[in-house]
């Protein structure tokens, strides 16, 4: 073994790495993107605590004590509850079903009376006027079901001036909407995001495929044939849409086998598949951008993560634990709208025609067509199709 040869091979590898930007990406940029995306999703980067949107229907009629106002002020002071006032339960329920808020708190007519009775005789439950605050929770939000009830319960305890050890006071928190919640597992919460998740990896596939075809001369051969660019791109897009459909079917079969049974009819499933198909357009677009930037198939694999990771962390099942800043960032990736629409349909019980779902569909459609257009234009600019 000669040291001279080893040294020469080492130098060769270093030079090769420096000369290949995609490999540099894998070594330096990818870890940065990964750490940022992971941190933003799970660590609340730059945002502090998450903000929960809670709708309030205040039916409290006793203005002399005005305990309901005290409660609302105390909740606002927590800085993690963002209150939205509604005149009636129905309007609030509509907002909840469309995902505008994560919970509804109904303050009963006798809340202040109950509060007053407790303050007058905190040690004598026999003279209390008992009141119940009803809480409706977004069943599609794991954070709503887990985080909001204890926050409100603790605030109630605090405004009553009650010691933590005291077993009860005159007003109780009752979770009114969780009638079906016990049927929802963690799988139910992440399933909508999983439909989106599978399709995201088309980006890598498309990037690799185009780069590969360039490398092995297939693109040149195809260009020799009478095939037009439109025929070529249409064929490619259709094939990836087909793959996306198969992916969505497999994910559905898997989630169904694992116990995912949303109470929806066939049209909702059909709509879900259409959403995934539309979404696949953006992944083909991102794949084309990847193939444009990448010099080789292996480089395309690495570069594709530039698009895969944000979509993955900001717009799929990981979204349940997003910080508020990450939630804002999520609105810039198409996968967010697909997951949101599927969550509205499968878990919030929204109909296909509901404004929230249609808005998501519009956002997905516009962004996906735009990304596909950019992908085709970029690829065509640098490589002949």
């Amino acid at each position, binding site marked *: 073994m000669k040291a001279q040869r080893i040294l020469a091979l080492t130098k060769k590898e270093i030079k090769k790495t420096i000369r290949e930007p995609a490999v540099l990406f894998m070594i330096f940029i990818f870890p940065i993107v990964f750490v940022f995306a992971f941190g933003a999703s799970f660590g609340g980067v730059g945002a502090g605590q998450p903000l929960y949107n809670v709708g309030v229907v205040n039916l409290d009629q006793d203005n002399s004590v005005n305990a309901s106002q005290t409660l609302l002020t105390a909740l606002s002071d927590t800085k993690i509850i963002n209150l939205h006032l509604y005149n009636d339960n129905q309007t609030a329920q509509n907002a909840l079903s469309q995902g505008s808020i994560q919970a509804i708190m109904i303050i009963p007519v006798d809340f202040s009376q109950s509060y007053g009775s407790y303050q007058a005789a905190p040690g004598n439950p026999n003279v209390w006027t008992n009141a119940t605050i009803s809480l409706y929770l977004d069943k599609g939000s794991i954070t709503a079901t887990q985080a909001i009830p204890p926050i409100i319960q603790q605030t109630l305890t605090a405004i009553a001036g009650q010691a933590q050890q005291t077993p009860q006071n005159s007003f109780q928190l009752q979770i009114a909407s969780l009638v079906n919640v016990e049927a929802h597992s963690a799988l139910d919460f992440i399933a909508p995001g999983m439909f989106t998740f599978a399709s995201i990896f088309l980006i890598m596939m498309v990037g690799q495929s185009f780069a590969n075809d360039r490398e092995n001369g297939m693109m040149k*051969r*195809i260009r020799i*044939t*009478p*095939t037009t660019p439109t025929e070529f791109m249409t064929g490619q897009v259709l094939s990836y849409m087909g793959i996306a459909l198969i992916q969505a079917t497999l994910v559905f079969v898997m989630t169904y086998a694992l116990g995912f049974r949303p109470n929806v009819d066939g049209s909702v499933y059909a709509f879900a598949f259409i959403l995934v198909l539309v979404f696949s357009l953006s992944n083909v677009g991102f794949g084309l951008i990847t193939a444009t930037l990448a010099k080789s198939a292996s480089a395309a694999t690495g570069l594709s993560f530039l698009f895969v990771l944000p979509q993955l962390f900001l717009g799929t099942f990981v979204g349940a634990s997003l910080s508020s800043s990450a939630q804002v960032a999520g609105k810039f990736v198409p996968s967010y709208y697909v997951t949101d629409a599927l969550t509205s349909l499968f878990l919030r019980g929204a109909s296909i025609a509901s404004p929230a779902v249609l808005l998501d569909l519009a956002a997905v459609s516009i962004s996906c067509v735009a990304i596909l257009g950019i992908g085709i234009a970029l690829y065509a600019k640098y490589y002949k199709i």
Partner: protein
Amino acid sequence: MDLFGDLYAVDKAQLVTRRENLLDKMGLSEDAKRRAGKYSGGMKRRLSLILALINDPQIAFLDEPTVAMDPQSRHSVWDFLKELKKENKTIILTTHYMEEAEELCDRVGIIDHGKLIALGTPKELVSQNQVKNLEEVFIKLTGRKIREE
């Protein structure tokens, strides 16, 4: 083969006939089920030739069609190209093998540094340059100095 047949919009039945015929003539029938990536260099060249001819073109441009082929493969390709000639197909091929040009071509053009320096039938070129064969014509016209391709 099917992909390129379809890209050339060849009729399905015709494509099957043409494919089997070309595979047979190129000696690839027994290897038709194998992945092309596993083929030897010579087999890939023959497959490449099939792909170029799957649409039965009237004019074919073949870039060094027998490079890296063993003698048997080369001769089977020659036989096939001669058949195409008999069918009145026009073939324009580039080659560095002068015996190949002599064997196959009706007209030979010698290009040196991008310029056409000689053009004619093999016999005309040999007789004009008063040498024994095309290889000597080539060397006489382009020089003996080895050059970078």
